[in-house]
Structure formats: C-alpha cells, structure tokens
C-alpha cells in the first residue's frame, strides 16, 4: 500500500509570536519551526500502515528552504522519498492555491491513500486536504482516529462531536485527514538519520507541473493581523511565586468562594 503524507512546517508551539511589519502576518525572524502537530501523527500512521502492509510512504511539502529540515525528519523516521514544492508562487494564504500545487505534483504519482493533518497549526483552515481530494476526484473522510485497510477499500474510524465516533468505509484511492492522538509518535533513530541521507527529495517548481500565475491568485487573503482584544478583564496577580500564590489563595477563598 502506497501512502502520500502531506506535511506542513509551522513555527514551534512555544514560539512567542509578533505581528510582522506589514501587519498581515507574523514576523518570521528568529523563529524555529517544526512539523504541524496533526501531520506528525499522519506521518506516523502512514509508517505503521507500511510496516503492516508493505508499500511506500511518500512525503510532500510545500514551503521555503527551511522545510527541508522537516522533510529530512520524516525520511529519518522511515518515509521512503519526498517531494518538496519550492516555488514561491505556491506560497499562499488561500488553501485552494496550496491544494492546487499539491494536486499538480501528485497527478503522476501512484498511491492508495493520501493522509493530511485535520488542520494546520498556523492557518488552521482545515481545508487543504479536502480541496485536494476534490481536485483529484478522491473520496474523503475527516478527523480520522483509526485506519483499517480491507480488501475492497479502507475502513476508518471518524471522531464526531462530544464523544461520538463512526466507522466509515471508502473505496481506494482515498484521502483521509488525520486527528492528533491516533497513535504514539516515534523518534528518529541515528540509523534512520543516516539512511535518510540517501533518500530522494525531488524539488518541484511551478513550471514542472504547469502551475501558472493565474493558478496562484488568492481568492481570500489576510488584510490585517492583530492580537485579539481581551474582552474579559482578567485580574493578573503579580509578585514573586510565593507572594502571588498567597494572594491567589486569598482571592479564591474570600472573593470567589470556591472552597
């Protein structure tokens, strides 16, 4: 079974974010990056499926040079090869533009499943996967918590709201968006890191896939980025830890009366 995993690189979770000079995005200077969380789980699930059923895991990621680091991490964990979409034309705040680039690069690939994260940790569109499915004419299931390949397709467990679940059967090829927590993540081993050095990372530019300027036009775009205004007035308790702790306990006891 061949599985494509769409990986996005995002600023590390603990990053202190600042608004950029153009006030339309964050200031990207001095940030460190990592794989978007759900994508790390998608990759892990693909590797586990491969270990059980054989086949190939192909990772694909669109983004600047720094993205290579996440691609290498995926290869070190056990992915077989990678496609890196490097053209600045692909960079977009419109999920359809990203999906179009991915679709272009995957047109000539043979796969049974595509995994994406259920949503990215930066834009959080929760769209790129499904738009890609629509463009490639694939059936889809979202927020997947278990994957069972069967003779005639794939059976997946979807998470629904408030503790409900549902199994859904799909013919393959299909696209699944993977939820965090579907499995337990592995670390790359030294052996894996060494082996990754020999693995192929294919670079793809716009011209390679017939992606034109008009394909890159954004239908939606951020006009302004800003920190949310706090609507509730939080009483921030200042002081050294011991002092703040004493003040808080007093408030809880006498003002909030929670004991």
């Amino acid at each position, binding site marked *: 079974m061949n599985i494509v995993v769409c990986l996005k690189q995002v600023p590390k*979770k603990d990053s*202190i*974010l600042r608004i950029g000079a153009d006030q339309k995005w*964050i200031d990207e200077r001095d940030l460190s990056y990592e794989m978007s969380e759900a994508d790390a789980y998608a990759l892990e699930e693909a590797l586990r499926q491969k270990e059980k059923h054989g086949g190939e895991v192909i990772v694909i990621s669109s983004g600047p040079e720094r993205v290579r680091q996440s691609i290498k991490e995926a290869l070190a964990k056990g992915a077989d090869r990678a496609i890196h979409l490097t053209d600045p034309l692909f960079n977009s705040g*419109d*999920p*359809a533009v990203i*999906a179009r680039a991915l679709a272009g690069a995957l047109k000539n690939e043979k796969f049974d499943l595509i995994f994406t994260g259920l949503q990215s940790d*930066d834009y*959080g569109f929760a*769209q790129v*996967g*499904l*738009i890609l499915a*629509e*463009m490639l004419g694939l*059936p*889809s299931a*979202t*927020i997947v918590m278990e994957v069972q390949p069967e003779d005639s397709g794939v059976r997946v467990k979807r*998470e*629904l*709201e*408030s*503790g*409900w*679940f*549902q*199994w*859904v*059967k799909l*013919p393959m090829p*299909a696209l699944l968006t993977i939820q*965090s*927590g579907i499995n*337990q993540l592995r670390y790359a081993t030294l052996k894996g890191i060494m082996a990754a050095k020999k693995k192929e990372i294919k670079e793809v530019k716009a011209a390679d896939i017939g992606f034109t300027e008009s394909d890159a036009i954004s239908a*939606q*775009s*951020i*006009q302004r980025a*800003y*920190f*949310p205004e*706090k609507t*509730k007035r*939080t*009483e*921030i*308790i200042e002081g050294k*830890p*011991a002092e*703040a*702790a*004493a003040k*808080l*306990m007093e408030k*809880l*006891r006498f003002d*909030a009366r*929670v004991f």
Partner: protein
Amino acid sequence: MSQGILLFVEQRDGVLNRTTLEALVASQQLAAGMSESLSAAVLGSGVSAVASEIAAKKLDKVYIAEDSKLAEYTPDGYTAALRQVIEKLDPRYVIFSHTYQVRDFAPRLTAALGKTFVGDCIGYKLEGGALLLTRQIFQGKINTDVGVSTEPPIFISFQTGSYRADQAAAGESTAQIENFTLDMSGVELRAKPEEKFQEAKQAVDLTQAERIVSVGRGIKSEENLGLVKDLAEALGAELAASRPICDNEWLPMDRQIGSSGQTVAPKLYLAVGISGAIQHVVGMKNAQTIVAINKDAEAPIFDIADYGIVGDLFEIVPALIAEAKKSQG
C-alpha cells in the same frame, strides 16, 4: 445576479443542531447590514419538523431538500445536494456553523464550485460596503481580517460560541417553506457510514467535580505530572487535562476537557500550562471561576480567566501547594 444569504441548517436524525441558531444570528445580522434577503436550506430525509422550527425565526424562506440518499450524512451526498440548491438559488453568501459535519464537506463543495470558503470565523466587519471576515490563526493567538476577491457565492462558517443562539430573532409570521426538488439519481455515495457509537462508559465523571485542576502541554513531560496531582490534592480538586496530555497517554482519555472530551462547569477551574485553544475552551468556559497559570501573557486562556498568574508553572505550582497546605493546617 447573485443575491441573498443562504443559511445551511444542520440536523441529525431530524433534530436541529443548536449551533445552527448561532449561525442564524450571524446571518440575520449580515442580512440586515447588507440589506439582503435571508433563506435557509435543510437537507435530509424526513426533516419537515426541523424546517418548521427554523421557519419560526426571522427569515424570508426555508427550503427543504429531501432525498433518501440524504437520510444519513455523507460528504458526497451533501456536496451534491447543496451544490444543486446553490446553483439554482445563486445566493451571494452561504453561511454555516463550523461543526465537524461542515468541516467534512464544505471545503469539497466550495472547491467543486470553484469558490472560496472562509472557515471558522468569529465575526465580521463591514467596512465601506466591503465584507471582512475575522478568523483566528495560530490556535487563537492572533486574529486576522480576511477579504475575499472572487465572484459570489462566498462561503463562510462561524465558530461555535461566536454568536449567542438565544439572540436569534423570531419572525413576525412563519416563513414560507418550499420543497426543493433534487436530482440525486446520478450521485454515487462513495463513503459508507456505519452506526454512530460512543466509547465505553467513562470511569471518572468530571461533570460532578466542584474543583478541577487541569494540566496542559506546559507541564512538558509525564514525570512532572506529580506536581499537578499534588496541587489537585491540596485543593481538593479532580485532575483533568487538555488533549495533548491524553493523546500522549499521560492521562486517560476520560480526563480530557473540550470539544472532543468532557464539558464541565465546576466552581473552580485552574488551568496550568494550557494555551486556551477554542476546542479546549468550549469544554470549560462555563466554570464559575477560572484561573490560569501560563508563562505567555498573550495566551488566549487569559481572555476567559478571572484570575491569572503570568509565570513559570514550575515555580508557581509548588508555591500554591505550599500555600494551600498552610491554610489547611
């Protein structure tokens, strides 16, 4: 020419999803602000009761689009059906509530129509006639105003809790209900859903807890959990967690708070190293008193906290434990 606003009405087994009423409030405000008409579409099979419920609200028309292929939700069925409705009615805006179901098909639908979908919005602004949609990025840490530059219809979904369902205006008279004729004969439903189910009964019932200490990824590693366990004990509280803690299996799933965990409303909810992503907040925002300990002064959790301490939890939690023990003794 495209005109009017179309609201997607979500139902399951003939019962209206309450979040639709929140999206209705947004739709009513948009309709008033832009002088557009407002209609609603109910998809399914045997959904006339849902249509009547919506028709009692302030809107112009309700369409019922029924077919046996819509008896159970599938992405292919809903995409095909709503597409037919939209192509016929040609609205300027299509409004959804950002539910799991909508997440499952709306991006497909808009891609199929070659349109754009601004999802998970928390509000909108009308600036000189232009519509800007406010949506959060980086898990609620930053807000953005998003502009759209395609031909209508424009697709928008609103995040749960952004509008208050009880503010949905009732109609002066019942809105007209019209049957919309679908042609679903050529539509293949590729995904075959089975029965919905819930996992085995929860071992702990956090909904009964008076006080909850909840721990998030700020705790860094499983070994450090002892710290928050001690705090919970000192405060006479139950221990709960954000999703990543349960994903890592540091605590069992039944201690997870949020949209995919439990919903609680204790007297005290003390969030330790939790950022306050919306999927967590929906599970605890009704707590009487919310306290947050977080090293990031901009963390969204401080937007809903009554009391906050900005700092390192590894310094603050031990001090709190000491303080709580002192006053007990």
